[in-house]
Structures are given as C-alpha cells and as structure tokens.
C-alpha cells in the first residue's frame, strides 16, 4: 500500500477535528475533536518517519501524546469546574474574560 494514503487519512481526520472544534458548543466534544486533530498530526508524523526511514517522527509522536494528555487534564478540569458551578456546558456562554 502506498504511504500517501496515510497522509490523506491524516488530513481527513484533521479536517473532521477542526470542523468539530469550530461548530460544536459542548466543551467535551470540542476536546474529543482536539484529540482527533492531535491524532491526525501524530499519524502524519509516523508516516513521514516511515518515508524518511528514521525514528525521529516516532519520538515526536510520544511528545504529542504527552501534550495531548496534559491538554485533556486542563480541559477536563475546566469542564468539571463548570459542572460544579452548575454552568451550562456551552463554550459560547463562557466569555467572561472578553477584553
């Protein structure tokens, strides 16, 4: 199988993720879509790693995984905080930090 297909899959996943982030209001779904985008990035990195024949891309994937984990911790923390304060889980309502 041609390696380019992996890149196409990665682009598709990324596009789905970005559309999800842009159109959905539920922060949990947005976080899911972010994960999707990160996974797409990781997949692209793996593909490039294969194409170039060295292991650098794999190392970057590990870093991406760490970043994703950290991001989920923060994101879910925010969600839990919103839930505790009985706020609606809607990102459009959260604009108190508006300049």
């Amino acid at each position, binding site marked *: 199988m041609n390696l380019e297909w992996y890149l196409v899959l990665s682009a598709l996943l990324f596009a789905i993720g*970005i559309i999800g*982030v*842009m159109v959905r209001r539920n922060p949990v779904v*947005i976080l899911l879509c972010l994960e999707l985008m990160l996974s797409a990035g990781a997949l692209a990195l793996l593909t490039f790693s294969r194409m170039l024949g060295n292991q650098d891309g794999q190392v970057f994937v590990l870093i991406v995984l760490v970043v994703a984990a950290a991001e989920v911790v923060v994101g879910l923390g925010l969600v839990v905080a919103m839930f505790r304060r009985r706020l609606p889980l809607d*990102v*459009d309502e*959260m604009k108190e930090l*508006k300049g």
Partner: protein
Amino acid sequence: MTLATWGWLVLLFPLVGSILIGLLFRVLAPRAAGAVGTVAILASFICGIGALFALQAEPEGSRHVASSLWTYASGGDFRIDLGIYLDPLSVFMVLVVTGVSSLIHIYSFSYMQSDEGYRRFFSYLNFFVFSMLVLVLAGNFVMLILGWALVGFSSYALISYWYRRGTATAAGMKAFVINVLGDVGLYIAAILIFAQVGAIDYGTVFAQAPDTFANNSWAINAICLCLLVGAFAKSAQMPFHTWLADAMEGPTPVSSLIHAATMVTAGVYLIARCHPLFELAPTSADVAAFVGLATLLISGTIALAVTDLKRIIAYSTMSQIGYMFVGVSIGAYSAGLFHLMTHAFFKALLFMAAGSVIAAMGNIQNIDRMRGFRKALPFTAAVLVIGSLALAGFPGTSGWFSKDEIIDFAHFRGGMYDVMWIGMLVGAFITGVYSFRIVFRILPGRACDEAKHLIETGHVVHGDPVNPLTGEQEDSEVGYPGPEHHVAEQAPGMKIAMGVLALLALIGGLVQIPGVTEVISNFLAPTFADSHFAHLHPSTGEAWTGLVIGGVISIAGILTAWLLYVRSPEVPARLIQRFTPLYTLFVNKWYGDELVDWLVVKPAQGIGRFFNNVFERFVINGATAGVSGLTRSAGAAVRELQSGMIRGYAVVMLFGIVGIVIYFLIRSI
C-alpha cells in the same frame, strides 16, 4: 616595624576612633568620647613619628615606599590598588596634620564641653583627620580622589554641625557644592592622566610623564589646569574662595582644623605632590602662582575691612595659602611646605585664642564690640600676640622664616616673578596691618562689659541664644551656645594646646634658618630631587637679605596698625569716609559672592527654568503623552478583536496556519 606598617597604622587609629565613637555614642560618656577621639589622633601622631624614623633609616636615594593592602580593581594592564605612598613629603604632611590635630582635639575636649553634640563632634573630628590622612597618604590618583571627596564631606558635616542653625547648614552646603565642583576637576584630571599615561599610581605616572608629554604641550597643561580646579576649590583660592568665610559658622575648633591642619592645605599638597607634572606645564604653574598672588592680595584687603573676628582670620588663611600656592608653583617647594607647617601652628593658635575670646564675649564675634581683654584673659592675650607676630612675620618668629623664604625665591627667579615678589611684599605689609588690627582692637583699652564681668566675677557671661548673623532666636538644645556658659581659657586642655602652639609658632622657624639648620629642605630633598629647581636656591647671603627686607616690612605693617588703631583711632573712620568706594568693595569681599551668583548661579537657574518650563512641558510631556496615547489607541483596536468566543479564535488560528502553509508552498515552487 616597616615604614608601610607605620603608614597604615597612621590611617587606622583615626578611623577606629571615629567608628568607635559613632557606634557607641549612646553608651559612651561624653568625656570618654572626647578622650577616645583625642587618644586616637595622638596614637596616629606617634605612628607618624615612627614612620619618620623608619623613613630616615632608609638610604637617601630610596626614601619612598608604596604599599598596597589589596587590589581594588584590575583589568588588563590597568590596576587600582588600595595603596599608600610614603616619602618625605607625605610623612611631613602626616606629622603636620596629626600633630596640629592632636592639639586641636585637646583644645576641643575642654572647649566643646557644654555642647549637646559632644560625642558626635568628636566622631566627625576624627573622621575629618582620617579623610585628610587618606588624601595625604594616597598612593594613586583614585585614593587621592577618595580622600579629597571624604575631606569635602567631613567639612560639610562639621560646618553644618549646629544643624538647627539655618546659616550653618547653608554654609555647609555651599562648602560642599564648591568642593564638589573642584572634585570634578580632579576627576577629569585623573581620567586624562589615565588616558595619556595608562596608569594612575604616582610612581608610574611621575616616572613616565617626561616621556609621555612634550614640554608645555596642551595635554599636560589640560591635566594640570584640571588639577588646579580641584586645588583652588579645596584651598579656597580665587574664584572658589567664597565658601571659606561662610565656613566660620562651624564651631571654632573646626575652623582651626580646617584652616590649620587639614582641608585648605590640600591644594598646596596636591601641587607639591604633582610637581613632576607641573614642571612639565610651566604655563599652568604660572596660572597657579598668579591666582595665589591675586588671592593673597584680595583676601588681605578684605581682612582689613571686615569686623567679624573669625572671618578676619579666615581671610588671612586664604591670604597665607596664597603664599603657599605661589611657593609651590614657582619651585620653592620646601619653602611652601615650610610655610604650610608654620602657618598650621600660628593659625591654629589664632583660632584657639579667638575661640577663647568669643566664648568670653558670649558668642559675639564683632571686634568693634571687644575691648580690654588684656586684663580679662591674660593667657589668651599673650598667645594671641604671639600668633599675630608669627602671622605678621615679625623677625625671629616662625612666620618670618617661612614666608620670606617664599618671597625671596620669587625675587631669585627674577623676570616676571619680580612682579610676584613686589606683590607678595605688599601682601606682607597688609598681613602685618590686619593681624595687629585684631590685637589692637581686642586687647588694650577700657574693658567692655563682657570683659569687665569676667574680671570682676571670674566667670564668662551667658551668651544670648541668638544667631549673630541673622539675629534669630536659636534652638539651644543642639545649637551653640549650650544651656550653660562655657570656659574661656580656664580649662587646662585649652591652655596646654594654646601653650604648645604658641611655643611652636615662636620657635618653629628655627628648624629652617638659611645657612644654619635648613632641616625642612634637607628632609624634603629626596621628594624633590627630580625637580628642575632642585639645585636652584638663593645663596645664604641673598636669603638673609630677603629676611631683613621682610622683617622691616612686617614691622612697618605692625607700626601702621599701631598708628591706626592705638595712636589715632579716629583715622580709620576718616579713611573709610575718604575712600568709601574702596571700603565698600573690601567689606563686601570684592563682591565675590555676587560674581559667582551672576556667573554661575543665575545661568544655572536660567537653564533650570528653561528645562522646567519649555523642555519639560513641550518635549518630555509631548513625548510621554504621545507614547501613552499611541499604546492606548492600539489597545482599543485590539480590544475589539477579543470576543471571548473560543471557536472564533480557532477559526482565526486556522486561517493563520493556512495562510502560513500557502506562503511556504508558494515559496517552495
């Protein structure tokens, strides 16, 4: 102990004394503080004598040693050491400074006893002596500047000692500001020296100066003129002289210290120390000599006119320092320094005697009010006469030998220096008149009320707590006079100090009798061995001719004073009427303050006003308002973009990334 050890010990004791009194001033009894201060300076004096013996033990050719405790800064070839330099000149100065200061401390121990700030006074006094010793012992120009600046600070502290007295704090500030002006000259000189020679320690600079500088080139003259600015300011020469008379606001022992042992002699020392530079720059040396001459004549005439006892003596100091300036500038180094020494004796003595009289007058300083103190204060009267005789250069006294040696050297050099010779002889006559003006106004005649009170009751009068200058009521808690009246000459300490100084003023000249002893010039010879003038000195016969001329002029001056103030006391008033414009000029100190005001203060204020009203308002305010307005409007523009919608931000980010990717794609094609 080695010579260097003695040198460091000289510095150590006054510093320790000052710090000890300063830190323990709440614990220490006042008298104990005074004792600590006095003992510290005495110990320093003894170490100075130790240094003298150690120095004399060295072979004549190598009587100089530089010692360094640690290196203060170094980079490449450049080094600043915390170093001292000991040679006959610095040891001589150490002995004069510590010796006379010891006596002044002993005097102050009694004189200041009714003052509230007794401990503070002694801490300052020790620090002053320490600063002067740093200046004198410095081994490089950085240390010199350090000492120079510390002396300026100490003088500020002591002149403003009675800090609730407005005139005193103003005088302190004036002294400090003018001294800082001089310091700037010294800084520039040091920087120029470093730029030209590449070193700042005395040994290297003086050794390399003849190779570095062409004779009388602009570079060396610039350096020397900058040095002179420092010297003029510290030694109160024209045109930086205006602070000295105001400095009389300090306690009398302070005046004595500033005028006799420290501070004003620094300029003379500086020129003598830097003589290898000044000899390469004859133009600058001539400038120094002519300024000295002008100062000695001008301040002499002022001393003839003013009526404040301490100010008369202050102007006489300026005048005598003028002699020293002429001396060290025309090559009569040992004569100039010899005069420095004898002047320290009789000027300290005169101030002490004046302090005694002023105390007896209840702090009135106007000589028009004083009469008949011969009977009231016999001891003070005796030393006052001795001091005045020495100041006037009466034959046989110390001032006669020292002053006339300078005058004679000017004649010996001939040419245009003959102008100086005549000028200095005129100055000598004026000196005779004004020094005996004091004597004849204060001592003889019918006793004034204060003197009568002293004769009848044996106690001095209570002083009014008013400022003699402004007539304001004073805060006697810290201001002089203290709540109790204080001693006039009755305390043993004062008598000892005045007695020793009177003896020195009388016979101090015997160490340098032309053709007989010449101790001072022999002692200082190693320092000035490299001078062009080292082998140039008048023969014994010429020297004695000069002394005889000087003696005659001095006696003529004293006789004139006698005619004016004793024989026909109505003459001075008539003279004042006859020559009113001249008298107004003298009594207003040749309008020196007004001149400085007009030349320096007014333009400075004008510049200040310009910057405040024009520059500040339009340029600075405009700039700041512009910058703040710009940021504010930029902020307003950005603020509109902040919707708080996360998805909005995501879209913007996406477009941004897409834009960047497209940019790179296009670039790569």
